[in-house]
């Protein structure tokens, strides 16, 4: 800062007490960031928008309505009455072609055909359903229960049910750690990658190269400033999900904080590596999408990666995002401590060190 001279002597040269270059590089990046209000808005607002949209779309609701069609025939009225006994079931009668089409297009979950009864002298029904659709399977079982009951079946066991819907077990609880991981990945890659390539295009990197600045200081400064942006973003997201969706953290805040920091370091390191050679914003954004795409689909942001074949599991677990999301879920949902997260922390640390080291080696300073 420029300050008036207090004691009247003119100080033109200085040696000691200079602020460290690392500190200056970091604060410069931070200032540049928070002086762009629109950037701040999008960085902090977008993840929240995402939680709201997905939280609403995937909220766990009990199955409210089951649509069952009945093939219109001479004895079908009784069938309709039996099914309509349950208020959740909506029953309609159609001819065969319409029933088929409604099932195919998802307008109904199932259709029931009254079968030939003359041979065995007992009623018979056919269920036509889609075994790959969960709603269709549920509809078949429920319809069967209603029809059997109406025909006189008596259940030998008395059952009572309790509904379970505690925080920690819902989809939103699974989703929020995934979104935190995704936010750290996107923030690290876009934030670092774009800023670095932009500075390269503006020849600012070349200008820095012409000073005695240490190259590692610059790279560490960029990464450190990223950590500072990340922390409020993550806190905001966690607080928001807690207030609006009652998402709770079962583990310790400190453990979570350490994980978030390591995740931010890891992905800003990857961002540096991705941006280490690119000369245009187009090429760096292409590269970043290429790097992120496998993790978006495989690392379990929106659904568990257990769904992928067993042979792919070891590879999926080595991707940079998978251990972060796994560890976040273990801390937030299961209350895991750092000592229980050895393999996750190791994989993330290795990615961080390797990416930073390679980036420092191959970094392009001039255009």
């Amino acid at each position, binding site marked *: 800062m*420029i300050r008036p001279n207090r004691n009247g002597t003119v100080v033109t040269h*200085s040696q000691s007490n200079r602020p460290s270059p690392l500190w200056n590089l970091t604060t410069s990046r931070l200032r540049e960031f928070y002086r762009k209000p629109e950037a701040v808005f999008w960085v902090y607002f977008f993840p929240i928008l995402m939680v709201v949209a997905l939280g609403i779309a995937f909220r766990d609701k009990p199955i409210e309505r089951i649509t069952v069609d009945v093939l219109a025939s001479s004895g079908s009225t009784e069938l309709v009455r039996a099914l309509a006994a349950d208020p959740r079931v909506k029953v309609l009668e159609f001819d065969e072609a319409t029933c088929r089409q409604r099932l195919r297009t998802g307008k109904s979950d199932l259709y029931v055909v009254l079968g030939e009864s003359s041979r065995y002298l007992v009623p018979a029904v056919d269920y036509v359903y889609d075994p790959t659709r969960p709603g269709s399977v549920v509809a078949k079982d429920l319809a069967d229960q209603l029809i059997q009951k109406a025909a006189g079946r008596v259940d030998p066991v008395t059952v009572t049910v309790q509904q379970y819907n505690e925080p920690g077990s819902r989809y939103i609880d699974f989703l929020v750690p995934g979104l935190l991981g995704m936010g750290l990945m996107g923030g690290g890659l876009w934030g670092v990658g774009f800023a670095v390539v932009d500075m390269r295009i503006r020849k600012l990197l070349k200008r820095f190269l012409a000073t005695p600045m240490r190259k590692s200081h610059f790279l560490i400064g960029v990464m450190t400033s990223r950590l500072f942006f990340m922390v409020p973003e993550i806190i905001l997201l966690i607080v928001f999900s807690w207030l609006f969706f009652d998402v709770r953290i079962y583990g310790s805040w400190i453990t979570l904080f350490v994980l978030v920091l390591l995740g931010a370091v890891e992905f800003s390191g990857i961002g540096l590596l991705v941006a280490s050679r690119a000369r245009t914003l187009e090429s760096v954004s292409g590269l970043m999408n290429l790097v992120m795409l496998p993790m978006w689909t495989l690392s379990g942001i929106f659904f568990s990666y257990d769904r992928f074949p067993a042979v792919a599991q070891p590879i999926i677990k080595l991707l940079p995002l998978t251990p972060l999301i796994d560890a976040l879920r273990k801390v937030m949902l299961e209350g895991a401590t750092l000592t229980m997260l050895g393999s996750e922390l190791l994989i993330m640390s290795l990615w961080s060190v390797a990416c930073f080291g390679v980036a420092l080696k191959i970094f392009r300073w001039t255009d």
Partner: protein
Amino acid sequence: MNKPSLAIRCQQLTKTYQGKPPVEAVRGVDLEVQAGECFGVLGPNGAGKTTTIEILEGLLPPTSGSVRVLDMEWRTHELEIRQRIGVSLQETQLSDRLTVAETITLFRSFYQDGLTADESLKRVSLTEKAGAWIKNLSGGQKQRLSVALAIVGDPDLLFLDEPTTGLDPGSRRQLWDIIRSFRDRNKTVMITTHYMEEAERLCDRVAIFDQGRVIAMGTPRELIASLGAEHVIEFSLQQELAGPGKRLLQEWLSRLPTVEQVDVSNGSVRMTAAESHSALGRLFEELEHRQLEITSLTTRHASLEDVFVQLTGRHLNDDSAE
């Protein structure tokens, strides 16, 4: 501090950019810049000025040749050299949303010793802009900041690559004063420019570049004196002359007293003379005698521009000649 007598020395410097076809930007340049002088690299766009200065600044590796800066080599003493040189690149876009003071403090932090941020701003007369965002500076203020960033490490050697390009005459003069006062502290400056007036006024010695080579070197006075005639007479004839008429004109103009060099193209004539008054006197007599009429006539002192024209047959800032 024990100063080396040579601030810069490069020998047989070449730089070829790979590509199809490869571009030979620098083709064998030898330079020796004395400590304490302001050395100008003058030449048209594409002459290899920037490539040369960036090699000397250690930003580009040469294809071949040797470079010594402040008696050190880039390969072995990069950090030591960087601590003692200051650089202003041709086009650096500093961060728009940092203030002048923040930017200079950032750059200051890279150097072990140097000026205070206040002092370097004072030297480029930007003190009152210390709190302004860089995006709100004018072109001239940005260039002065660029120089302030170059001198904040209190360098012994300052490299300035076209610092005044695109500036208005007032800003240009202001920058010249800043550069002069830096030189007056017994420091070395190397500056590239394509303005011959700038080189003439500012530089102790000048190297004229063309197509990757040094085609002339010396003090501006020496270079102009090498023309053998310090006056330039230019005039246009009403009549167009071609073929034998043009040759004849050239011949009798060359015989005018103290005339050294004559260029005739279409109807316009440019010639150099040691004494303009005696040459002009005879010129008018001859024109009258030959019944030729002139439409315009100017006389002026010869400049580095004329040196360039004499050496290459082209004008310095004539882009169509490239």
